[in-house]
């Protein structure tokens, strides 16, 4: 029997949409934030250097929000994702 995948939505900020063919939202294989990010990079490999260091860690300034909460205040990359969860990549606030 084929395992049912836990799919979530990852919202892409404007500055990164040039790497997702203009897509504002990407459906990712969820389960946890880590697996969602792996799924995102598998679909759009050009995003990787923007989000991950050469050592493979999420870059420190990358903020991912689940609802109102930064995952850094939850369980980090191990934060579980439910079927209807929307994960949002937040850009820094530029200029003025």
């Amino acid at each position, binding site marked *: 029997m084929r395992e049912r995948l836990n799919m979530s939505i990852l919202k892409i*900020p404007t500055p990164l949409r040039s790497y997702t063919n203009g897509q504002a939202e990407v459906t990712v294989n969820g389960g946890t934030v880590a697996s969602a990010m792996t799924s995102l990079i598998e679909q759009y490999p050009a995003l990787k250097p923007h989000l991950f260091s050469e050592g493979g860690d999420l870059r420190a*300034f990358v903020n991912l*929000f689940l609802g109102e909460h930064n995952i850094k205040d939850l369980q980090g990359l191990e934060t579980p994702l439910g079927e209807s969860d929307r994960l949002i990549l937040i*850009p820094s606030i*530029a*200029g003025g």
Partner: protein
Amino acid sequence: MTLLDFQLADSKTNLLDGLASHAGNTPLLPLRRVTLRQAQGGALGLPPRVKIFAKAEWFNPGGSVKDRPALNIIQNALANGDLGSGKRLLDSTSGNMGISYATFGAAIGIPVTLAIPASASPERLTLLRALGAEIILTDPSEGSDGAILAARQLAEDNPDLYWYANQYGNPANWQAHYLSTGPEIFAQTNGQVTHFVAGLGTSGTLMGTGRYLRERLPNVKIISMQPDAAFHGLEGLKHMPSAIRPGIYDESFAGSNLEVRTEAAHEMTLRLAREEGLFVGISSGAAAVAALEIASQLDEGVVVTIFPDAGYKYLSDKALWESPLPKGEG
């Protein structure tokens, strides 16, 4: 003595201007230990005739360099009647400009409305609310450009309620630096500044200070600095190729442009705190990276940059400040 004889000891305090008379005239601080550290590392030693200085803009009453353009924009709008008849000042902001508008708005009696991404740090939003500003939170995934578009729309829909200050397109922004930051740097360096390095946000600091310095010192080198990628962690700085271009920005103005990686700015921000006692914001770290890069290429010269604000508004980013060692990844 009677109260009629009352006189403040500090004759510079202007009873009519209050806070406004204390904007600008910030200290010019030398960077000493972060440059020595590089020399000991062997890679980028600075010759003794090369100096680096930073304008300590958190000494402004509103806590950042933005006091200069905010005050000039408000004063110009009052002078020509755009403000003062009950309209609210409306603009988009990443935080500091909003705090400066709200500070002087409260002092002068001008109501202020600000469009700001909902992802702004809690310190910034709390400060703005404390100062009585009306806040309109915009979609965080749209970043600053989303806030700009929201402010434009609000102004268009309610022309009788709002006066749109438009810091990105208002010439009073860069003119504030032409009138204050530039002359201060010229005077504080005895006219010997050779290189001016400024980060790009609205570009007002670069354009105004740079224009003044270039008029007084035709050989001065003007260098712009911006993030190295569209998605970055340098709050307050703009990656121009991927953002809405400010109307006051002239891309051809700076003689050269440097790109700074977020991790390098974070590491330098920590070093400035721990090696210079300068608890500054992330964009100051980026400015120091750029200034050191310029200085490392010189045999002699006086490099001046701007440290826009202090670190208080970024304290909620605990991972940055509590890092035991610099976090750079090379």
